[in-house]
């Protein structure tokens, strides 16, 4: 069963066609990679899926239901959550609070209840905090729970973003260059972390990454974009040897 189906999605900004007639499917429980040279339209794809942009034409199905035209928060509520290429944490909030914001999506109590400090709101908050602490622990951030997220170091910020996204309990997790700016050791840790997410939580993940070691090491199938259009897709071994992919990355065929 395909969790996400992108069907001939196209978006134009004025004369520029940023994503051109792209179709792919992400099956349940897969680690799916989206790669391509700079400016290929990968992040724009993410923005289409998460509802920040609306496709000019084409359709995006999630869980068998079209999500085109839905607001970002509605799509998040349906179970798609993402991280950002340039980290976008809530800088002045603590790491714990950042994760609780993610978990808040599934809240039950109403705002008046919270304003009157009714037991249900308190209990719910306690539950959310507990779950957030559990997640922070999973990502090795428990000791930083109360520090301002702005003050965390770079690798921790990246991990915190993933934890925050995981707190929404997404069916599909979109990671936008999670390894950017990490050193080789951190990258190895990240790869292990991503595999664990899949193995322990059964998480479906769609991943944008430039670092080929990470992509090839983690993903089970890969989709390659260039100039907004598909040039290849398949398992890593195939992509590695695909002449078109090599051309897109290195220019002229060798």
């Amino acid at each position: 069963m395909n969790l996400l189906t992108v069907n001939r999605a196209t978006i134009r900004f004025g004369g520029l066609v940023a994503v051109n007639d792209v179709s792919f499917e992400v099956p349940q429980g897969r680690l799916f990679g989206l790669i391509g040279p700079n400016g290929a339209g990968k992040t724009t794809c993410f923005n289409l899926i998460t509802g920040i942009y609306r496709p000019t034409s084409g359709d995006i199905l999630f869980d068998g239901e079209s999500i085109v035209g839905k607001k970002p928060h509605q799509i998040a509520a349906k179970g798609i959550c993402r991280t950002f290429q340039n980290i976008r944490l809530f800088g002045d909030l603590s790491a714990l609070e950042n994760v609780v914001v993610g978990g808040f999506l599934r809240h039950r109590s109403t705002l008046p209840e919270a304003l009157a400090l009714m037991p249900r709101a308190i209990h719910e908050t306690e539950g959310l905090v507990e779950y957030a602490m559990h997640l922070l622990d999973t990502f090795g951030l428990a000791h930083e729970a109360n520090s301002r997220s702005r003050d965390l170091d770079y690798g921790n910020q990246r991990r915190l973003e993933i934890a925050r996204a995981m707190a929404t309990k997404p069916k599909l997790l979109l990671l936008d260059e999670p390894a950017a700016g990490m050193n080789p050791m951190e990258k190895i840790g990240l790869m292990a972390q991503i595999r664990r997410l899949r193995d322990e939580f059964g998480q479906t993940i769609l991943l944008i990454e430039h670092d080929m070691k990470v992509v090839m090491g983690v993903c089970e199938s890969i989709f390659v974009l260039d100039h907004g259009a598909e040039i290849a897709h398949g398992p890593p071994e195939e992509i590695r040897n695909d002449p078109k992919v090599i051309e897109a990355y290195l220019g002229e065929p060798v």
Partner: protein
Amino acid sequence: MTTARIWLVRLLSLGAVILFLWLLQTKISPALGFLDNRLIQIGLLYATLAVSLNLINGITGQFSIGHAAFYQIGAYTSAIVSIHYYRTGTIEPWVWLLLMIIVGAVAAAMAGFVVGLPSLRLRGDYLAVVTLGFGEIVRIIIQAQESLGGSYGLTVSASNSDAPLKIAPMWMFAALAIFVIAVCRNLLKTAHGLPFLAVREDELAASAMGVNTTLTKVTAFVLGAAFAGMAGALFSHYEGFITLKQFDMNQSFLILAMVVIGGTGSITGAALAGFFLYLLPESLRDLPDVSGYAVFGFAISVVIVLIVSSKTRRYVRLTSPGAGQTLFMIFGLVGVLGALFMGFWIWSQEVPRMTQFSVSVLAVGLACAMLFTRKRMPNLAGLGWIVLCFGAIIALTYPAIQGLQSNAFTSNLLGEISYRAGNLRFPLFSATLVVVMLTRPQGLLGHHEFSWDWVKKLFGLPHKSKELAG
């Protein structure tokens, strides 16, 4: 926490509040009669207003600078309802007042909804200008309506009498302030406050995490406006007479300044700033036309402090070690004594008690600035310096204006200038705003809440957290 325990705490705190309000009305307020109760009441009102603006501005990060409009709408709506429907003797005044507070809240909340809508598309300075424009539109419309008194003002009276209606008791002001503070605190205490903070920090990321940013922003505007409307209703039934001047652009800026100086996002910061930034300058309004000697003394102590400041001290220590130190000791002592003398001197003057209190506080602040070096108690010295700048402006403008007056040419040019220290309130206020922005853009408390650790840090005592107020 178990449900039973939550309810127990709830009941106990409610009881404590009611007990406090009862004590305030029957015991404390009469006992404080020698102070000006009016100042305290309006001070509480400003605390309410500052906290309500803080919800929009500090917590949700939507930059609204037309808050007086909501205040105004609450005041006028409730006043009109009272004029038409209230008959004295039919209903307990305070019950009617409660009803009017609700009316004011509803009217202002509707206005808040209307203003909240642009916030969906605008951010930052553009939103600021739209809210400012909204405030002006409200003022202009009211000015054009003769039924609302136009620019003459509106007397709030019962339908069966012409006497102004002044039915707001002391406890109501305290109750409203406590209510608004409690609601805001509850919001931040549960997870429901986090979407608001998330919208402030990063709207796009918040929406990607499933926060309905539209709903959140409009909610903030509606709630903040409703609180301001409550304050407005209370105000109109306290004064018995309202004019446009009480709700103009300067009023909005005043409330904004309170939030900013108190620390955007800090409820306690806004409440404390609202209360004291009204009380302190307002009590100085009655400062007597300062006698030359007092100003002279004050000016001298200011000069002394400038000399004793750590930089000059370091400089002199390097150039002439022995004599300089002794000289400084003497100067510093004279300065402290001078400041303390000011604090005592004011009690011999024929001015309201509140003024005497405020001057004493200022004088003690000045003395603190001199006594505590920046190294040992940096924060208190900092506060002292702000007080000092106030004093310096007062002390220096007086001789300057005297000089301009004594010169025939300039005095002819500038016309009559009536110099009163009280006239300096607004210049001082705006100067503080600029200085705070330049030196400490996050305000006194920053995003933090008031805590005793903060006070301890202020006095250089051992404290737990390093980041606090840092």
